C-alpha cells in the first residue's frame, strides 16, 4: 500500500502544496487566503458589529453568520452565480465547524460575519474555505480557543488516500472531509460521500486527522508571519 503513486504523483498520505496568507483584504476587519493545490479560497471577516436585521440579535452572545460562495469561474464549466442548495449547506456546516471554537459570549448583541469566496475549485473546497475562515477570524481579533484545521481523505479504487483532488474526486469511491480541533482532538465537521464499512471509516478519519495536523502547523506559521514584526517589540 505504501508504494502506490496517485494521478498527480503524490504518495497516499501526502497533501497538495499548502499556501496560506493572512491579511489579504484591505476593507475587511480580518482576512486570509488559503490554497491547497489548485483549490483557492479567500475569507473575509467583518465584526463583531451591530446586528441587522435587528430580530436576529441575541442578548447574551454574538451570532456567527457564514456565507460560502463559489465564483462562477471557479470550475472548468461555468457555474451559475448566486446561492444554491450546495452553498447553503456548506455555509451551515462551516458555521457548525467554527462555533465551538469562538467565545461568542464576549460580544453580546453583535454579529460576526464570515464570507468565504472560492476562486478556484479542485475538490475539498469546504475544507479550504474553513481553513481560510479560521485564519481570517484570528486576524480580525475575534477571541477563540484554538485554530481549527480541515482536510479531506477518501478512497480511490481500493486505496485510502489523503486530500482528494481532481480526478480522484470525480472518479473516486469515497470523499470524507473533516474539520479538526487539534488541542482537544475534537472533530467539528464530518461528512461522507460514498459507501464503506466501519473499520475503513476509522482508517480514513485517522488519515484525514493527520492531514489536519499538517495544515494546522501551516496555519499557525501564516498567522505568526503577519504579526512577526509587531511581536519584535
Amino acid at each position, binding site marked *: 500500500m505504501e508504494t502506490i503513486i496517485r494521478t498527480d504523483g503524490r504518495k497516499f498520505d501526502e497533501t497538495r502544496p499548502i499556501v496560506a496568507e493572512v491579511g489579504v483584504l484591505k476593507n475587511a476587519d480580518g482576512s486570509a487566503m488559503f490554497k491547497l493545490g489548485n483549490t483557492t479560497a479567500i475569507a473575509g471577516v467583518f465584526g463583531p458589529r451591530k446586528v441587522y436585521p435587528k430580530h436576529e440579535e441575541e442578548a447574551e452572545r454574538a451570532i456567527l453568520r457564514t456565507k460560502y460562495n463559489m465564483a462562477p469561474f471557479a470550475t472548468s464549466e461555468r457555474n451559475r452565480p448566486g446561492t444554491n442548495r450546495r452553498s447553503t449547506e456548506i455555509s451551515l456546516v462551516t458555521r457548525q465547524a467554527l462555533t465551538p471554537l469562538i*467565545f461568542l459570549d464576549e460580544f453580546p448583541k453583535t454579529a460576526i460575519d464570515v464570507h468565504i469566496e472560492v476562486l478556484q475549485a479542485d475538490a475539498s473546497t469546504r475544507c479550504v474555505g474553513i481553513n481560510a475562515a479560521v485564519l481570517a477570524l484570528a486576524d480580525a481579533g475575534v477571541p477563540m480557543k484554538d485554530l481549527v484545521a480541515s482536510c479531506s481523505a477518501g478512497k480511490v479504487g481500493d486505496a485510502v488516500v489523503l486530500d482528494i483532488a481532481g480526478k480522484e474526486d470525480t472518479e473516486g469511491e469515497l470523499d470524507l472531509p473533516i474539520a479538526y480541533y487539534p488541542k482537544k482532538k475534537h472533530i467539528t465537521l464530518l461528512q461522507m460521500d460514498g459507501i464503506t464499512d466501519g473499520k475503513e471509516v476509522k482508517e480514513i478519519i485517522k488519515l484525514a486527522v493527520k492531514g489536519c495536523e499538517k495544515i494546522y502547523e501551516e496555519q499557525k506559521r501564516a498567522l505568526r508571519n503577519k504579526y512577526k514584526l509587531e511581536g519584535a517589540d
Partner: protein
Amino acid sequence: MERKLVIPGDFLGDGRAGHGAYEEDGKSFSSCIGLTEEKNGLFFVIPLSGIYSPKRGDGVIGKIQDIAFSRWIVDVNSPYEAVLSLADASDEFIDLTKSDLTKYFNYGDLIFAEILSVSKTKNVQLSMRNRKCRKLRGGRLIKVTPAKVPRIIGKAGSMVEMIKEMTNTQIVVGQNGIVWVKGDHEDIAMDIITVIERKSHVHGLTDQVKVILEEKMKNAPKVERRQDDEEEEPEPQEEDEFRP
C-alpha cells in the same frame, strides 16, 4: 522584559487567565493574537488586532448620532453605542421644556468624553464631567487600530507631545482608536500618526519619528495666520490625551 507573540490556543503557563486569555484545568491559553505578559501568576495577552470594546474610565472620541428626550446617543467606533445623559453632560441646570438639546451638542458633533460605566449587557454611559472632556470643533480625524493607541501616546505622552509641539497642532487621542488633529500642520501630523501605526513594533520609535518629523517640517510651507483663526475660543492648555 521580552514579550512573546502568541496566537489563539498557545499555552501561556500554569496560572490564572486574565484579559485575552482563557483557563482550562488550571492552565492558561491565549485567545487572540497578541503579546503575552504575566503579573503575579495572572497571564494576559495584549491584543494586536480587533475592534474597540468600551471599558470604564477610557477617554474616547465620539460622534453624536441621535438625540433623545434627555440624552445623546454617541457613536464611539464600537458595536455598542454610548449614551450621554443630560445630567452627565453639563453642570448647569437645563430646562428641557424651554431649551433645545441641539444647542449643546448637535447631530454630527464630535466630543471627547469619558466612559462612566459599561454594564454586563454592554450599555455604555458617557460623562463630560472630567475637565478634559469637551466638544471638538473643526480639525480632522484619523482612525487607527485601538491596540496601537498607547504607541501614539508614547511613554507618559512623550510621542504625542512631540508631534504637537513640532507641528504646532492640538491632538486628542481617544482610547477607541480615533485621533483628532487640528492646527497649523494637520497634514504632517496625520502622516506621522499613520507612520507610527505602521511602525508600531519598532524599538526607539520616538527618536525615529522625530527624524522623520524634522525632515517633513523643513519642506513645510509657512503658515500665515488668518484673521478668523484668532477668533476661535481659546483651547485649554493642559495635555489633551486622556489618562485615567
